[in-house]
């Protein structure tokens, strides 16, 4: 029998939290009948609100799935519930293959639902290439105009005083940055706009809001100035372009030299922005000791790619985007998938981790956080922190502090996480059995 999924992987497959909750609510034997599993097919019938139960079938190797319910969510709660039951060990190998599952499987085998082959980039004509170049030039002009407007706006804000910031002002500017095709800047402004404006009285008006806003204004100003510089090294220029929001064609990235390794998934964070959901997955190369960031995008309400869930691993070729530090990558050829990956790593000391963070900040001052692995003991007293063997500490931040304390009991542990100004945000702990998600 193939390796059973872990529940975290099912969670990652859910198109949204509502579907996940609905799926887990159905993940009890009550509504289910005719369930069974014969690798790679998993099937069952779930009694819903209709007269007859919904037929559900999942191919766990792909994964692909089908349910007879009319839900527009994909996968629907019935698929998720069946996967949860299986992941929790409540469905064993066996059972009579339902007609629905057999039919679906036969259709797939016959090629009825096979995914269309990926389009090879069509060769383009001279005219198309010229039009494309013109569009690129036009965009660069728009970006130049947009960033100039951004810098003027920043100067106006600083001249008038941040204490006079109008609520929603950054949202208006973000909209103009979208028009100017500077989506990276627009996203940062929207993030800033979401923070509640603190009290605007007194010399230290607004406290943390003031500090954070000024820091972000400074970094946006730096980005705007960097765009106007023509003498930047190529890597830094690529970094600037990526923060502005220029994309690099997938085929260009895949054409770069691959970095082959068994990559452990050491962290994952989902976020929703306007109509797009983003999944940020941190990978660690168990042989190369490199870190990589893989991004997945989906329309809100649609499932994000769930092939990389924390604790699992993949033996694959990664292709890194241009820019420094080389972090963002695409997964190329995949050679093997591991539900659980076991490896050894000597965690850094706090000083080593901070030194790495400083090095990458020197390359990319706009980077929000950087993955790292620290060997240390977690504690809460006198404040939440991770203390390494030489006694240096870094503050523990984020929502996983209590889980880290519970899992490690204050004993030295190898902890993966993200380092940033607030401190260290732990994501996974490396144990003899592999990575444990916090």
């Amino acid at each position, binding site marked *: 029998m193939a390796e059973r999924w872990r529940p975290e992987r099912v969670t990652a497959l859910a198109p949204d939290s509502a579907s996940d909750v609905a799926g887990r609510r159905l993940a009890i034997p009550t509504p289910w009948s005719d369930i069974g599993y014969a690798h790679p097919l998993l099937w069952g019938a779930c009694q819903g609100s209709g007269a007859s139960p919904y037929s559900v079938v999942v191919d766990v190797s792909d994964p692909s799935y089908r349910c007879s319910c009319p839900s527009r969510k994909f996968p629907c709660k019935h698929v998720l519930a069946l996967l949860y039951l299986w992941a929790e060990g409540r469905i064993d190998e066996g059972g009579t293959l339902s007609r629905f599952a057999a039919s679906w499987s036969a259709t797939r085998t016959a090629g009825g639902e096979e995914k269309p082959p990926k389009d090879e980039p069509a060769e383009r004509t001279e005219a198309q290439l010229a039009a494309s170049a013109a569009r690129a030039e036009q965009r660069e002009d728009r970006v130049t105009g947009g960033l100039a407007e951004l810098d003027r706006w920043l100067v106006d804000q600083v001249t008038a005083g941040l*204490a006079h910031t109008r609520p929603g002002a950054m949202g208006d500017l973000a909209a103009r940055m979208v028009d100017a095709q500077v989506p990276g800047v627009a996203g940062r402004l929207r993030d800033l706009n979401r923070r509640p404006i603190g009290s605007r009285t007194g010399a230290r008006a607004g406290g943390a809001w003031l500090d954070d806003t000024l820091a972000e204004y400074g970094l946006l100003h730096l980005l705007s100035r960097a765009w106007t510089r023509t003498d930047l090294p190529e890597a830094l220029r690529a970094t600037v372009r990526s923060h502005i929001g220029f994309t690099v064609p997938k085929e260009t990235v895949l054409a770069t030299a691959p970095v082959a390794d068994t990559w452990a998934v050491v962290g994952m964070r989902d976020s929703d922005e306007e109509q797009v959901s983003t999944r940020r997955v941190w990978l660690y190369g168990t042989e190369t000791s490199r870190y990589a960031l893989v991004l997945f995008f989906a329309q809100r309400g649609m499932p994000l790619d769930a092939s990389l869930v924390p604790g699992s691993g993949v033996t694959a070729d990664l292709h890194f985007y241009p820019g420094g530090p080389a972090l963002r990558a695409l997964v190329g050829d995949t050679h093997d998938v591991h539900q659980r990956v076991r490896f050894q790593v000597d965690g850094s000391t706090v000083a080593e981790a901070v030194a790495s963070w400083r090095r990458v900040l020197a390359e990319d001052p706009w980077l929000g956080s950087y993955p790292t692995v620290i060997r240390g003991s977690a504690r809460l007293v006198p404040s939440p922190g991770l203390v390494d063997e030489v006694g240096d500490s870094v503050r523990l931040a984020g929502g996983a502090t209590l889980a880290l304390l519970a899992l490690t009991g204050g004993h030295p542990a190898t902890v993966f996480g993200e380092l940033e100004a607030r401190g260290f945000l732990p994501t996974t702990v490396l144990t003899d059995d592999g990575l444990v998600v916090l």
Partner: protein
Amino acid sequence: MTFAALASIAAVGTGQRSSLPPTGALSAYLPGPDESDPQALAYALLDSAAALAVVRRATPATAPGDPVPPAPDDSLPEPPEHVVSLLGPLLADDAGAIRLASDRAYVLGEALGLVAQAGMRLPHRLLGAALARRELRASVRPVLGARGEWLLAQLQAAGLDGVTVATAGPSDADVWERGTSEERLAWFRHARTVDPDGARAAAVAVWKESPAPFRTELMSAVAVTAAPADEAFCEVGLDDRAEGVRFAAAEALSRLPDSAYVARMAARARASIAVVELEPGAIHRLLKRTTRSLRVTPYEPDEAAVRDGLSRKLSSAERLTRLVAAVPPSLWPALVSATAAELVTLHQDEPRWELVGGIGTATLRNADATTANVLVAAGVMDPRLVPLLSTEAVLAVMSRVPPTLLGTVVDRLPWPWPQAVATAVGQQLVGPNGHQVRPDVWTLFARAVPLRLAGGWAQRLRGLGQPDGRIVRNLLRDTTSVLTVRALIADELRPFLPETSWQDTQPGGRP
């Protein structure tokens, strides 16, 4: 220049300034502004902000402090993996298999109790979620294990797990000394359950300076846990200037059958109530009715009776109820040569409801199950008596009430229900008149069915399919889910549970 100093300038605006402070080491990298141009000053500030922001971000926050000893090893085993997979969402209060939060809380409490009975502990990965919910502390504590106790100590030492009303204990003197009124009352109520004499002494010490509402709450807490040692304190309460305190003191004293207060009330009852023998007439002989009758003389209170709570402001019926309620049912034969049950069934021109109510209250105060059963057998329908009734008596009451009132009866039954009661309620719910039963009876049923029956009832409810009506379908689904999860957890833990605990009791109880 520090970032904070830069932020202060930015808050006011460079338009109000003619220069910026020196940027120190950074000045080697940053161009100096043309200070005659206000815009150049703003640019210079933004340049400095960018540089200092990177410096600021490059220095992650630290957490200095002395080393903390790690957690000791755990010796208790973890529950089976299936139980853990069900406990996880329950502890996280995720709307997983069970939709209603109150159902989840109940099932979780029961499951944690079973885990404790099985001599197991929570796996380490669930401790964070378990300790993050302070309202669960009492039920989580027995299954924390060594790691969990260490983590709790860390939380408390870090000030991240302040003393709560739920965890306040008699040793938490600070709460009593400096807490809010609500916290102090919580402390007092808790202290009364573990050190009643110490708690009473604490109340006496602050009695005079405490406001009337606080004194009333204290005395009410004493009434709930009254013991003979409290008698003197409660007698003083009868003379309190606050009516609430006097009332609560009378309530407390009436729960002490050997107290002087009860003796005084019994004496008044004997003077006011009598059972007299009538000359049997033809009609009595024909109807085979008793010739005994009840004679109630309206009681006119003197000063001592007023002190005992028989105020002149009360109607004579209210005084009678209060008087009878203060007399333990077991005393009536000695007082009037009739049992409490006879008093409410003697032939009268019209029922003396105040007498029935008073005797019911006295039965409850004295937890007199014998009298409760006799009263119900005699036709008294007082739902308050249900917790004292035998299973047979409960079934008898259930058979006499219409489906619409079934909830009123079973609502007061302690959990788990006896098997026969659970079966009877279940049959009512799935019977032809099930739709008339109050919806909350479904919720009660899901939680109060004994564990050994939960799986069977879940199976039976599943067999009902999809009945008409969305409300009924939802009730059925929720009830089935709760029963299923309860049964799954219990079945997994059953091999580790003492047989006696499985057969006769179950943890959790009524919240």
